[in-house]
């Protein structure tokens, strides 16, 4: 099992490299297979950021168009996922910055509540999620990009450092400063959530 995993990993890497190189010279079937591998990852990042499926799909489309245009310049000097995460994080932070207000609650793609869950709890949770997104969108750019990779892309501190090509200490200081701002911005929303749960 231990010896099979590195062999499988290197086969996957070689196949991915082939798809990237073929996509870079215009092979759309190769690019389709690359998109198939990663469209869920990019969609999840986008959906966590905007909370609406059609907007998330538009962002994901934009990400893959940018990737396709830039592939001829990709040199395999860092993992493809790091590069993809960076493009996705930039696209979602631009999108949330320019986001128009959602005029209808019907536009929100809500996850069906669990059976027996209190509708007030569900509504409070959605309100908190919207407040979180708005607070992240209002952060200064460096903090916003770093938080986007942790919150929307669910990357660890180490992965964020490698993706942004910055020291781990810089990631820690940015997240520390960003979360201090978020803590103050959301203190009321977090407190209300707490009160709702104890009511």
């Amino acid at each position, binding site marked *: 099992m231990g010896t099979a995993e590195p062999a499988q990993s290197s086969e996957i890497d070689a196949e991915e490299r082939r798809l990237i190189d073929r996509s870079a*010279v*215009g092979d759309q079937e190769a690019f389709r297979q690359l998109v198939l591998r990663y469209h869920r990852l990019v969609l999840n990042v986008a959906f966590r950021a905007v909370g609406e499926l059609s907007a998330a799909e538009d962002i994901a489309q934009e990400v893959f168009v940018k990737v396709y245009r830039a592939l001829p310049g990709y040199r395999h000097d860092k993992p493809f996922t790091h590069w993809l995460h960076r493009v996705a994080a930039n696209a979602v932070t631009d999108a949330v910055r320019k986001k128009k207000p959602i005029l209808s609650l019907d536009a929100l793609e809500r996850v069906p509540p669990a059976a027996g869950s209190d509708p007030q709890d569900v509504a409070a949770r959605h309100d908190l999620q919207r407040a979180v997104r708005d607070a992240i969108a209002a952060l200064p750019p460096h903090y916003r990009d770093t938080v986007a990779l942790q919150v929307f892309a669910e990357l660890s501190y180490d992965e964020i450092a490698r993706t942004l090509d910055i020291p781990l200490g810089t990631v820690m200081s940015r997240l520390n400063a960003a*979360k201090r701002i978020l803590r103050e911005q959301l203190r009321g929303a977090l407190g209300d959530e707490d009160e709702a749960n104890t009511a």
Partner: protein
Amino acid sequence: MLSHATAQDWLIPYADGMLSNDERQRIDSHISGCPFCRQELSTVRELNLALVSLPPAPPVTFAPFWLKLQAALPAARAPRREARFTLYRRAGLAFAAAAFATLTAATFAFAAESSLPDSPVYPLKQVEESVRLALTPAPQRGQV
């Protein structure tokens, strides 16, 4: 003893699991005696819970996603550009080979028997004579 200000700075990386064991122990020791930092840590943990509560996208069908993306992709130009470059490169190499052959033949032609040792083409004349000598049958060599 950890100062209150330093403890405040460490609460977020503490909640994110980014402190060393020694730092964690120092924070734990401070928190046990500081209700304000205990409350702040609770708020930080609630913030982290709120941040991870953002849900992933619901399932989507790939085919329509790909069709829409494919329509937005730029027209494939790279393969034609690559073929044109290869054609130019081949033509260029052929031209360079022909020019070299022509130059060499012309140089040999100018390397006349009267070329003196101080002439730049004299070494070529020597090569030409060596080749001619090697190809001439032995009985005829005195006549060259």
